[in-house]
C-alpha cells in the first residue's frame, strides 16, 4: 500500500492545500509539505530491500481489458528519482513561500505543484507502462498550468502552450510506442517488458516502437530539435523552473530511457539515435547558453545541454556510461535547482533577469553571490564540486566509444568543446552578474539579500554540491549504485567515485575545457559579435505564427467545404447515394426478374404519362411557383389514383386528404414568399444538377424494375390470415395500423402532434409582412369571404362530420379509419376558415387544438395500456360482438378507441399547424365583422 500512497498523497494534498488557504500562506506551505514528508517516511523502510538489489512491487487490478493496472514498482532508479522529486519538492515549497507575493493565488500554486509532484512520482513509481503514460501526460498538463500560472502574461501563456504542445505531442508518440511494446510483449507490466528485451529488439516493429518512445523521451527532455519549448517555459514562476524544468520533469525523458534501457537499449538503432541526439543537444545547448542575456535563459540552455549530455551517455550503451548518466542526473538536479533558485532571488531582488543590467551584485548580496558562484562552478565542472565528477566520467566514456576511423575522434572533441562552452557560460553567470561593474537601471534598487529562509533551500543544495563533490562515495555512493544497477537491469560494474583518478586524458580534457572556457569568456565580445550575425529566433513567436497560420488555414478550408449551402450538402448526399448504391448496382449488371413484365393497359399508361409530364413540368416551370404548385397537385392526384388502381383504397384516400392539406399549407406559405423564383444557378450548374437527378432517377427506375419483376413472399400472409380472427377486422391494412403494428401508428401520430406543436411555437413570435398584391402587381381583392362560399361551407361541416363518422366506423372492416376520418373533419374545418375567416371560425371552436392533440395521444396510449391490466403487453387489442335489442349484433373493438385517438390527434395537429400559419395574416388580427349576415 505504501507505493500507491506515495503517489496518491500529493494529490490528496492538492485537494487539501487550498482548504488551508484561510490559515494564511504559511499554513498552506506547511500543509503542502506534509505529503512529501509522509512519502519520504513511507519510502524509507524499503531501502533495505533495494540496497540488497531487490525490487518492491505492488499491483492492483484496474482495467484488464486495456492491460492497465495499478502496478507500482520501486527499485534503485525509481528511488533515486523519487528522492529528487520529494526532497527538491520540499525545498521548492519553502522557497516558493517567500518567492510568491501575498496577492497571488498561493492555494492554486501549491495545489498545482502538488499535482505535479504526484504525477512525477507516478511516472517514476509506475510498474505499468500505461499507468506511467497517464502520469506522463499529467505532468505535461500540470506543467502547462504552472508555466501559465501568471495567466495575464502573454509570454507565459504562449510558453505554456508551446510546452504543452511539444511535450503533450511527444506523449502521444510515446503512447503509440508503448502500445507497440505492449503488443509485442503481450503485457504492459514493467516487469514483463524489462524481461522481454530480446523479444522486443528482435521484433520487426522494434525500430518503430523505439522511435516513438524516443520521441516521447526527447520532447520531454528537451532534446534537439525539440528543445525549444524549455527556454520559453522559463516564463513560469522561478520555483516552477527550479523544480520542473531543471530537477524533475525534464528528467522524465531521461528516466524513461533509463527505465526502458534493458528493454530497448543495446542495439545500433538505439546507439545512433540516442547518442547522436544527445551529442547535438549537448553542443547546441552549451553554445546557445553562452549568448543568452536572460539569466533563466542561460540556465535553460545549460539545462538543455546537460540533458543532452545525459542522453549521450545513455546512448553510448556502455555500462559505465550509464552509471555516469545516472550520476549526472543527481548532480545536475542539485546544482541546477540551486542556480534557478539563486536566479529567482536575483530577479526577486532586482526586478529583472537581464544580465546586461544586472552587474556587481556581489556588493549588495554577497551571501547569495557565494552560493550562486559555487553552484555555477559546479555547473561548469570545476573540480571538488559534484558537476566535475560526472563530467569526468563522461569525458572518460567519450574516449571509449568504438566508432569507425576518424569518427572516433568526434565524441571526445565535442565533449571538450561542450565543456569549454559550459565553463564559458558558467563564468559569464558568475562574472557578469556579481561583478562586471555597477548595475544598470535596475527596477528595484538597491538590491538586498532576500529573507533569511528563502536562502535555506539554496544553501542546502549548494552544500550537497560540495558534499557530493568531495565525498561522492559517502554521500551518494549506495544510492547511485542501486540506481545504476536498476537501470542496467543487473548489478553495475565496479567503478570508483573519486575526486581525482590520477593524471589521465579525461583530466586533461577537463583542464582544456576550463582554460578554453575562461579564454572564450574573456574573448566573449568577439563571439557575441559573431553570434549577432545570426537572427534571433523567438520560437514562441514562430510557434504562434505557425499555429495561427494553421488556424486560419483550417478556418478557410472549413468555410470552403462547410459553406452554408444546402445545395451543396444535398448534392453531397445524393452523390453519396449514387456512389454507394447506384454505381455498385450498375457494376453488377441489371436484371429483369423471373416474373417478367406484365401487360400495360392504356388508361393506366396515359395516367402514368400525365403524371410524368406533370412532374417534369413542375421542374420546368418551378420558377412560377403557383403554377408549379398546381402541377404538383396533379401529380398528387394521380399518385392517389395509382394507389386505387393497384389495390390500395386506404392509401388512395389518405393520399388525397393529405394532398389537399399540403397544398393549402403551401399556399399559406406562398402568400408571404416571392411568387417567382429567379434564375440563380449558372447553366453549367443546372446541367450538372440535371445529370445528378437523371442518374438518381435512372437508378431508381432500374431498381424498381428489378424488384417488381422478382418473385417474393412476405410475412403478410400472417396478417391476411389473422386479421379477422385475431384483429377483429377485415380491412387488413387498418388492422395492421391499429393492431399488428399499432405501435408504429402511435409513433406516427406522435410525430404529427410534435410537428404541430413545433410549428405553433416556431411561429409564435414570428412577424411576416404580406405582400400588398399578387406577383403580377394586382392589389388583393377586398372580398375576404365570398357569399356563395360561405353559404356552401355551412352545410359542409355537418355533412363532412357525417362522412367522417362513416369512414371512421367502417375503417376496421372496409377502407377508411381514424386517420382518413380525421383528415376529412380537418378539411371541413379548414373550409370554414377559408370561407369565413380566422376569427369567426375560432369563435365557434370551443377547444384548444393543443388539448385535442393531447387527448388524441392520451386516448391512443391509454387504450394501449388497457391490456396491461389483463397481463397482456401494451397495445394488445380486444374485440367482441355484442347483441342488443333493436340495434342487433355489432362489434366492439378496443382498436376503435385507439383509432379514435388517431382521429383526434390528426384533427388537432392538422388544424393547429394550419391555423398557426393563418394567424400570421394581419387580417386575422383585425376584428372584422364582415360576417354581418
Amino acid at each position, binding site marked *: 500500500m505504501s507505493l500507491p500512497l506515495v503517489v496518491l498523497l500529493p494529490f490528496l494534498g492538492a485537494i487539501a492545500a487550498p482548504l488551508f488557504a484561510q490559515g494564511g500562506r504559511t499554513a498552506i506551505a506547511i500543509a503542502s509539505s506534509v505529503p512529501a514528508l509522509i512519502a519520504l517516511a513511507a519510502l524509507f523502510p524499503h531501502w533495505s530491500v533495494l540496497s540488497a538489489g531487490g525490487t518492491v512491487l505492488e499491483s492492483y487490478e484496474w482495467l484488464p481489458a486495456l492491460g492497465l493496472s495499478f502496478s507500482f514498482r520501486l527499485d534503485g532508479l525509481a528511488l533515486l528519482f523519487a528522492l529528487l522529486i520529494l526532497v527538491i519538492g520540499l525545498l521548492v515549497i519553502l522557497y516558493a513561500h517567500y518567492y510568491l507575493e501575498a496577492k497571488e493565488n498561493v492555494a492554486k500554486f501549491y495545489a498545482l505543484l502538488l499535482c505535479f509532484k504526484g504525477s512525477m512520482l507516478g511516472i517514476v513509481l509506475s510498474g505499468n507502462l500505461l499507468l506511467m503514460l497517464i502520469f506522463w501526460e499529467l505532468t505535461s498538463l500540470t506543467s502547462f498550468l504552472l508555466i501559465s500560472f501568471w495567466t495575464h502574461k502573454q509570454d507565459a501563456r504562449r510558453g505554456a502552450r508551446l510546452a504543452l504542445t511539444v511535450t503533450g505531442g511527444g506523449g502521444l508518440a510515446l503512447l503509440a510506442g508503448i502500445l507497440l511494446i505492449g503488443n509485442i510483449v503481450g503485457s504492459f507490466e514493467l516487469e514483463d517488458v524489462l524481461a522481454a528485451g530480446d523479444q522486443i529488439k528482435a521484433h520487426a516493429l522494434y525500430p518503430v516502437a523505439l522511435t516513438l518512445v524516443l520521441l516521447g523521451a526527447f520532447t520531454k527532455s528537451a532534446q534537439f530539435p525539440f528543445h525549444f519549448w524549455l527556454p520559453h517555459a522559463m516564463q513560469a514562476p522561478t520555483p516552477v523552473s527550479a523544480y520542473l524544468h531543471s530537477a524533475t520533469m525534464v528528467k522524465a525523458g531521461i528516466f524513461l530511457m533509463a527505465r526502458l534501457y534493458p528493454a530497448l537499449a543495446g542495439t545500433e538503432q538505439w546507439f545512433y539515435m540516442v547518442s547522436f541526439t544527445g551529442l547535438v543537444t549537448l553542443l547546441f545547448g552549451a553554445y546557445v547558453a553562452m549568448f543568452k542575456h536572460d539569466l533563466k535563459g542561460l540556465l535553460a540552455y545549460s539545462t538543455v545541454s546537460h540533458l543532452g549530455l545525459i542522453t549521450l551517455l545513455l546512448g553510448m550503451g556502455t555500462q559505465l556510461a550509464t552509471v555516469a548518466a545516472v550520476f549526472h542526473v543527481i548532480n545536475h538536479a542539485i546544482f541546477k535547482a540551486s542556480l534557478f533558485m539563486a536566479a529567482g532571488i536575483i530577479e526577486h531582488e532586482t526586478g529583472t533577469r537581464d544580465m546586461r543590467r544586472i552587474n556587481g551584485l556581489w556588493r549588495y548580496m554577497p551571501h547569495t553571490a557565494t552560493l550562486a558562484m559555487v553552484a555555477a562552478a559546479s555547473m561548469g565542472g570545476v573540480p571538488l564540486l559534484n558537476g566535475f565528477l560526472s563530467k569526468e566520467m563522461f569525458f572518460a566514456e567519450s574516449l571509449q566509444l568504438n566508432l569507425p576511423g576518424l569518427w572516433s575522434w568526434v565524441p571526445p572533441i565535442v565533449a571538450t568543446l561542450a565543456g569549454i562552452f559550459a565553463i564559458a557560460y558558467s563564468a559569464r553567470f558568475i562574472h557578469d552578474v556579481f561583478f562586471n561593474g555597477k548595475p544598470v537601471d535596475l527596477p528595484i534598487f538597491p538590491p538586498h539579500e532576500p529573507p533569511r529562509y528563502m536562502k535555506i533551500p539554496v544553501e542546502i543544495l549548494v552544500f550537497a554540491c560540495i558534499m557530493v563533490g568531495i565525498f561522492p562515495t559517502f554521500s551518494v555512493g549506495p544510492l547511485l549504485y542501486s540506481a545504476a544497477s536498476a537501470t542496467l537491469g543487473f548489478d553495475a560494474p565496479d567503478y570508483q567515485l573519486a575526486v581525482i583518478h590520477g593524471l589521465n586524458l579525461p583530466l586533461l580534457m577537463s583542464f582544456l575545457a576550463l582554460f578554453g572556457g575562461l579564454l572564450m569568456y574573456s574573448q566573449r565580445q568577439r563571439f557575441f559579435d559573431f553570434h549577432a550575425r545570426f537572427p534571433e529566433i523567438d520560437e514562441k513567436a514562430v510557434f504562434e505564427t505557425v499555429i495561427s497560420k494553421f488556424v486560419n488555414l483550417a478556418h478557410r478550408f472549413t468555410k470552403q467545404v462547410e459553406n452554408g449551402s444546402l445545395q451543396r450538402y444535398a448534392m453531397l448526399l445524393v452523390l453519396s447515394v449514387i456512389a454507394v448504391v447506384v454505381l455498385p448496382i450498375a457494376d453488377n449488371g441489371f436484371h429483369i426478374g423471373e416474373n417478367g413484365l406484365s401487360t400495360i393497359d392504356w388508361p393506366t399508361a396515359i395516367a402514368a404519362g400525365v403524371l410524368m409530364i406533370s412532374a417534369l413540368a413542375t421542374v420546368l416551370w418551378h420558377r412560377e411557383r403557383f403554377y408549379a404548385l398546381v402541377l404538383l397537385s396533379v401529380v398528387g392526384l394521380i399518385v392517389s389514383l395509382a394507389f386505387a388502381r393497384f389495390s390500395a383504397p386506404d392509401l388512395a384516400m389518405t393520399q388525397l386528404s393529405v394532398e389537399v392539406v399540403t397544398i393549402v399549407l403551401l399556399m399559406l406559405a406562398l402568400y408571404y414568399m416571392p411568387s417567382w423564383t429567379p434564375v440563380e444557378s449558372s447553366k453549367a450548374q443546372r446541367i450538372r444538377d440535371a445529370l445528378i437527378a437523371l442518374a438518381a432517377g435512372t437508378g431508381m427506375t432500374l431498381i424498381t424494375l428489378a424488384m417488381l419483376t422478382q418473385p417474393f413472399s412476405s410475412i403478410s400472409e400472417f396478417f391476411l390470415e389473422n386479421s379477422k380472427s385475431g384483429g377483429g377486422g377485415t380491412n387488413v391494412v387498418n388492422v395492421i395500423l391499429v393492431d399488428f403494428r399499432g405501435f408504429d401508428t402511435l409513433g406516427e401520430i406522435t410525430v404529427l402532434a410534435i410537428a404541430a406543436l413545433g410549428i405553433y411555437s416556431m411561429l409564435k413570435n414570428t412577424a411576416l409582412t404580406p405582400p400588398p398584391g399578387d406577383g403580377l402587381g394586382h392589389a388583393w381583392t377586398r*372580398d375576404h369571404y*365570398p357569399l356563395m362560399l360561405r353559404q*356552401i361551407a355551412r*352545410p359542409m361541416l355537418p355533412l363532412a362530420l357525417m362522412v367522417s363518422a362513416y369512414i371512421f366506423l367502417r375503417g376496421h372492416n372496409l377502407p377508411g379509419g381514424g386517420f382518413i376520418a380525421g383528415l376529412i373533419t380537418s378539411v371541413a374545418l379548414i373550409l370554414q376558415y377559408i370561407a369565413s375567416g380566422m376569427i369567426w371560425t375560432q369563435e365557434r371552436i370551443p377547444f384548444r387544438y393543443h388539448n385535442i392533440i393531447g387527448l388524441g395521444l392520451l386516448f391512443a396510449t391509454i387504450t394501449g395500456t388497457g391490456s396491461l391490466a389483463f397481463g397482456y403487453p401494451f397495445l394488445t387489442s380486444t374485440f367482441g360482438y355484442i347483441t342488443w335489442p333493436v340495434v342487433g349484433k355489432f362489434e366492439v373493438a378496443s382498436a376503435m378507441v385507439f383509432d379514435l385517438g388517431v382521429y383526434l390527434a390528426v384533427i388537432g395537429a392538422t388544424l393547429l399547424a394550419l391555423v398557426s400559419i393563418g394567424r400570421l395574416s394581419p387580417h386575422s388580427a383585425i376584428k372584422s365583422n364582415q360576417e354581418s349576415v
Partner: protein
Amino acid sequence: MNPFAEYAISALLLFGGAFTLVGAIGLARLPDFYTRLHGPTKATTVGVGAIMLSSVIYFSASGESIDISEILITVFLLMTAPVSANMLAKAAMHIGVKTVDNTEGHPWEQ
C-alpha cells in the same frame, strides 16, 4: 344480369363519357377563360353524374344490396361546382383575365 339493366348501364356510361369528353373539349377549345368555365361546371358534372348512375345500377343489378352512395357524390358535385366556378370567376376578374373580343358587358372590378 338483366339485359335491360345492361342497356341502361351501357347507355349511361356512354352518355357520361361523351359529356365528360365534351366538357373537356370545351375547356380545350373555347376562346377565353369565362367561356371555358362553362364546360366543366356543366357538361362534366352531368357526365360524371351519368357514370355514377350507371354504377348504381350496375351494382344493384349484379345482386349486391341496393346502395346509392354514388348519388351522394353526385349531389355533392352539384352543390360544389357552382361555388368553384364562382370562386374561379372572381379570381379571373381580379387578375383581369382577357375576355374574347365579342364579349358583351364587362367583368366587375374586384
